[in-house]
């Protein structure tokens, strides 16, 4: 399948439309099961982060997502003009022992790291974040770098 490029503003409507386009592209590719779920999960978590945290002063961001399918993996590349953010350096949240103490943040990137076999990030000279996430098509992913 040729590369699919999806572009949308960082609004809730843009997010929803972009997600529809991704799911249509995954239908065409007939990606199913755990790899399908993981590709959608990566999209949901990365774009939700961009929409929620990427802008300063309510600016609407330009979000571009590219989908490439290889024989053994699906690669999603996220490109946005938001604040610089490298998700690779953040630690997973420590599991809580009680409901009262439980934190509610950090799960999104934890799920992305679990779904992906690699994460590559660069802040471009043009001031854009580019995050490349590789999701295996077959066996369960090992954490990146392991």
């Amino acid at each position: 399948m040729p590369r699919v490029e999806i572009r949308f503003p960082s609004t809730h409507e843009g997010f929803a439309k972009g997600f529809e386009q991704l799911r249509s592209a995954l239908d065409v590719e007939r990606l199913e099961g755990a790899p399908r779920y993981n590709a959608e999960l990566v999209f949901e978590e990365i774009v939700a982060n961009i929409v929620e945290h990427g802008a300063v002063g309510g600016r609407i961001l330009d979000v571009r997502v590219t989908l490439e399918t290889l024989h053994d993996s699906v690669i999603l590349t996220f490109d946005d003009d938001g604040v610089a953010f490298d998700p690779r350096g953040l630690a997973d949240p420590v599991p809580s022992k009680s409901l009262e103490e439980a934190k509610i943040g950090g799960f999104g990137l934890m799920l992305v790291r679990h779904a992906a076999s690699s994460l590559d990030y660069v802040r471009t000279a043009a001031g854009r974040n580019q995050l490349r996430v590789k999701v295996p098509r077959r066996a369960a992913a090992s954490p990146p770098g392991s």
Partner: protein
Amino acid sequence: MQLQLGKKVDGVLNVLLIGRLDTPGVDRIETQLTAQLVPRGERVTIDLSRVEFLGSIGIRMFITIARALARNGGKMVLYGAQPSVAQVLETTSLHNIIPVRSDADAAAAVARG
């Protein structure tokens, strides 16, 4: 995303969630689910068998509602997750703080206890 309230049996309310717990899905039901459960401090079992997708926003919703319920004397138990949804529950260790069971009977027993 839809939610369907079932009957209360032995003091335990069952709720069926249908669809996707992604950003728009949680937006659609969180307020209603909170309003139905928290003020009355319900003991509730949540049927996940028809949830096709669970992301971190759904995890956040469950923690927030379960905590509010617990403060009001209630309790939440999740059950029936499909494999990929179950994997998300496992990865986030949600089962450490909100009981997760495989079926309705086991979930109801925990909710009553």
